[in-house]
């Protein structure tokens, strides 16, 4: 039993150490890089009511109450997001990020190549994005974008990290139109792409 526990501890430690190693892209030689940007798991959302979630419901109504409260908050956030959905769906986030990474790398003399010829494969997965209330007590929202960056050297992962960028400006929701949201998200997506490229260039 002790041996099993020790083995589990060693395994957990080893996994943790491995995860830490992948958080920073090391100064490895990258001869030819291939890029793919995937938006199949991308979700537009507004996190407003959920930002102020507490354990009150759990105290009064237990785990089921907490679950119901959480679902109510999620529904309220979904209602807030509804007026922006058309603009969000029309936003070519994938293209903006891909172009930004590509152009920044190329400007630094690091052209991209096909996957078959590449020594390293960079996969960028677009995750949650949208508007986030910027504090528990506040009312203003700012844009956010979460990317999952995975670089492989052959079959091995050499970089596996989540990059979350937030916008510089914060506004109350009544001052955010679908047009201003689109403009702010385009800017944030371009900046995020540039940041990915710089992380590779200055590794």
């Amino acid at each position, binding site marked *: 039993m002790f041996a099993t526990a020790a083995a589990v501890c060693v395994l957990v430690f080893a996994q943790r150490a491995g995860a830490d190693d992948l958080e920073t892209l090391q100064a490895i030689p990258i001869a030819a890089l291939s890029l793919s940007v995937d938006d199949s798991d991308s979700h537009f959302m507004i*996190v407003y009511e*959920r*930002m*102020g*979630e*507490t*354990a*009150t419901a*759990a*105290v009064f109504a237990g785990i089921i109450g*907490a*679950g119901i409260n*959480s679902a109510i908050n999620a529904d309220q956030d979904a209602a807030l997001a509804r007026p922006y959905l058309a603009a969000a769906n029309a936003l070519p986030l994938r293209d903006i990020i891909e172009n930004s990474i590509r152009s920044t790398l190329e400007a630094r003399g690091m052209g991209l190549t096909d996957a078959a010829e590449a020594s390293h494969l960079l996969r960028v997965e677009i995750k949650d994005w949208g508007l986030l209330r*910027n*504090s*528990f*007590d506040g009312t203003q929202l700012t844009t956010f974008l979460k990317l999952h960056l995975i670089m492989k050297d052959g079959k091995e992962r050499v970089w596996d990290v989540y990059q*979350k*960028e*937030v916008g*510089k400006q914060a506004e109350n929701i009544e001052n955010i139109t679908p047009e201003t949201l689109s403009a702010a998200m385009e800017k944030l997506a371009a900046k995020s792409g*540039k*940041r990915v490229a*710089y992380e590779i*260039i*200055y590794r």
Partner: protein
Amino acid sequence: MFKTFWIALGALSLSACATGTTNLSLGLSEDAAKPALLSEVSPEVLVLKDVKDSRKPEETARIGNKRNGYGMVMGAIGTKTAPTDTVADVITKTLEANGHSVTSTPDGKSLEVSAELTRFWLDYKTGFVTVEFFGDVQINFSLTDPASGEIVFSDQFKGYYSDKTGGGLSKTWTRVMDAALADLSKEISMSAELMEAIDEHEAAGETAADVTTQAADSDETGA
């Protein structure tokens, strides 16, 4: 009645960690400041006097709130060093990691850095089974050419980090805020506009030096 009093006192004592102020020791770790775009221009001397505190009044005495499960504020999260000093240290280490020198003494020629801290805040969102912590550091950063008095660069830099965990106390708060400071350092060192402003000042200085040298040469020839 005494029983109620002792129970209340006991509960208060047990929750002391939540009601007091926890001061964090924050800063940029040794290897967090790295060379990036700013390292691609010739080394410059930059003057940084101090960082002005322009945070909202309600956010100056603390950098975050300790809340109970109902969301009520029970205590404060503070810092051992003034956030303005921590940010000044981040700016200095970042510029130095990129090959530049930082001084606090103006010489009338070197670009002067003005920084204004507008936000230094730790917050968290309680989910159904997880807690997401957010570290947010924002500064207004500008460069002034002392010779002309002109502001040659001005932008807002933001250091941000979020982490979703099962929960966490001062160790987690410190890690999140330190990561936000590291992100701020990256934002500064990866600014193409800041790099151009430093480069243009350096080029203008070289041109001025060339003109001065040529003038001195022609004076000598004339004499």
